[in-house]
């Protein structure tokens, strides 16, 4: 199907189903219930899931396949965002030209930075990419304020030209859209105590993500993808086999930079503001962590990793002691206070602590990331057969 092998096609369909039904799946708890706090099915977060999914998928094409660890990929996300917002300001609120320019611009930046950085490998490459991204961040935050909006970020203004749309009539800013469909428009469905929100922006991003995911599968299974894995494995052999690793790695770098730019453009399309901190090293580090957390070099891993981190950031950070007390109100007072006191450091302003612990737990217990966790669960279910061929394991030598 779609030129994919059965296994890959199944994965694609699964991901498609998950994204289409996300508004249901992510809102399992009835509105107003104590657990509703854990619902993630609101437009902004769902959009973030898929957008960061795209970012991580692209990053994984470089890191997962070639092993080149870029520590400055957020720079391309930033470039994409700025390009998109400028497009909104100058040309039109239609998202397509914005996305197009963003992908082209980030591709050009990636070509330049990649061309230079790929002259080195290993940690030296990582530091080169980091240095470029940090320079771009610093300049965007200060010296380039007229172009980037500096600390505040690049915003739309009532006085923007917007050549294709004409000026802004009423006193409010226009919203990004796709030929009349406004990205922020939503429909709501109430089913008993449940409320589900279907947002145009989300579905737009989801479709783009599915395309990006499909493309990533194709790349993974292509001769090009195989060359990239060969680069990771043994560049020396590749050289003596008559292949030039440089253009391959550069192509991977540019492709993943364009994915980042695409993600940046989508972020700007959902929320037309581009801030410099999107390019800070912690943002680059975040995509690295997403990829590793999910599973380096796996197709679906980075998407899972992105989802996990964004969920923590947006859901766990919002739980405050008031909500905690609400949950445990049924307990006797002393016990309630005790439990709240025990949990409190891990939620709300302590969400970083939980994040750190999860990072550690995942690498320690699931060396292959979340994907490995999934595989183990799957294996546990499949291996219901009685015979375990491990008789030799009974008596360890040490």
């Amino acid at each position: 199907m779609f030129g994919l092998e059965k296994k890959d096609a199944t994965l694609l369909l699964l991901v498609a189903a998950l994204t289409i039904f996300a508004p249901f799946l992510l809102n399992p708890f009835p509105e107003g219930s104590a657990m509703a706090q854990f619902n993630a099915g609101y437009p902004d977060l769902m959009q973030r899931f898929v957008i960061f999914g795209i970012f991580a998928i692209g990053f994984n094409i470089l890191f997962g396949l070639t092993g080149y660890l870029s520590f400055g990929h957020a720079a391309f996300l930033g470039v994409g965002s700025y390009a998109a917002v400028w497009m909104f300001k100058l040309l039109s609120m239609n998202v397509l030209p914005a996305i197009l320019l963003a992908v082209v611009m980030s591709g050009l930046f990636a070509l330049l930075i990649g061309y230079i950085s790929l002259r080195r490998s290993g940690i030296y490459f990582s530091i080169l990419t980091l240095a470029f991204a940090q320079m771009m961040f610093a300049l965007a935050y200060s010296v380039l304020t007229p172009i980037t909006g500096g600390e505040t970020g690049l915003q739309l203004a009532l006085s923007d030209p917007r050549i294709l749309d004409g000026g802004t009539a009423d006193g409010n800013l226009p919203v990004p859209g796709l030929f009349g469909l406004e990205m922020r428009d939503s429909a709501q469905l109430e089913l008993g105590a449940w409320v589900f929100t279907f947002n145009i922006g989300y579905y737009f991003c989801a479709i783009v993500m599915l395309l990006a995911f499909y493309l990533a599968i194709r790349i993974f299974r292509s001769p090009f993808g195989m060359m990239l894995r060969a680069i990771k494995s043994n560049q020396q052999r590749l050289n003596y086999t008559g292949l030039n690793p440089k253009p391959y790695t550069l192509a991977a770098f540019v492709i993943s930079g364009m994915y980042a730019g695409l993600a940046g453009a989508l972020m700007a399309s959902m929320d037309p503001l581009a801030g410099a901190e999107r390019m800070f090293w912690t943002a680059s580090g975040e995509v690295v962590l997403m990829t590793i957390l999910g599973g380096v070099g796996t197709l679906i891993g980075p998407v899972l990793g992105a989802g996990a981190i964004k969920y923590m950031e947006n859901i766990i950070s919002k739980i405050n002691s008031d909500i905690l007390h609400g949950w445990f109100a049924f307990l006797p007072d002393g016990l309630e206070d005790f439990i709240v006191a025990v949990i409190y450091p891990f939620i709300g302003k302590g969400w970083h602590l939980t994040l750190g612990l999860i990072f550690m737990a995942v690498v320690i217990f699931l060396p292959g990331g979340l994907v490995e966790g999934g595989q183990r669960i799957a294996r546990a279910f499949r291996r219901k057969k009685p015979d375990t061929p491990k008789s030799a394991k009974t008596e360890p030598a040490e």
Partner: protein
Amino acid sequence: MDALILQILNGLDKGSAYALIALGLTLIFGTLGVVNFAHGALFMIGAFCAVTLNRLFNLSHEVEVPGETDFLGNPLMRDVPYLYDIVGESAGAAIIDWSVPLAILFAIPIMIIVGVIMERGLIKHFYKRPHADQILVTFGLAIVLQEIIKYYYGANPIPTPAPDAFRGSFDFGAMIGFDPNTIIYPYWRLVYFCFSVVIIGAVFAFLQFTTFGMVVRAGMADRETVGLLGIDIDKRFTIMFGLAAAVAGLAGVMYTPINSPNYHMGMDFLVLSFVVVVVGGMGSLPGAVLAGFLLGILESFASMREVINFVPGINQVIIYLVAIIILLTRPRGLMGRKGVMED
């Protein structure tokens, strides 16, 4: 001219901070081959050893101040450290005043213990794992350590001054024949510079004049074979880790009077110290030190207003710009060894 000397002095001082942190980092990162994102956290914990000792000395009971009220109109309470009760007020005050230097003694065992626990409990299992896994686990650890400190000490910086004897500055310019007030230099920074020279020297001597260094280098290149030669490399890696943690911690202790410590000071230094180590060249201690001083001095030059006016924003990017230039002209940084973290 005097402006240049001034910036060289500043650069040396900034550089000694970079060099010291990079030294500890390169012991772990360049030598043991572990990408330790928790190194900044070790630096931070060192600084908080000083804060903690200061707090311990300041453990107090309250005494009512007659005739005065606090902001709610209640009688004003004044804190009197128990230390005053034990050794008398003037001696107590002197001890508190000297808490940063005293914290060196306090920090050494603590940092070694922290380092050893960290290595035995966690890092040990990651020597053979991919760098990506090391990044994730040490980054997670760094966040956890940071959050623990934040939980107990808050997010605000905590002033931890140097002893009174080292406050203020001396006029270095006047000493070498320039106009007064052209080249001034704070006493504590001189102390910091000397301190880092001593520590760097000590670490070098330890690794240069003992076979320990050779064994560790060999163990990093090929653990298995070193084991075949009867050497328990794990033990030495643990020692190395403890040593690196102590170096990072001492850098942190001594840094507290320069900038009030806060829980994220380690993260602030982290990226920079990686840049320093890599520019110095992987696996090279002298490289790390050299790069530390070089980048410190260049950063100081770039912050001169004559330079900024000439190239706006240069002070923002100088370190990265220099890093790029060096890495492009010298494939393995200043003094890197071949094959260390090149793939």
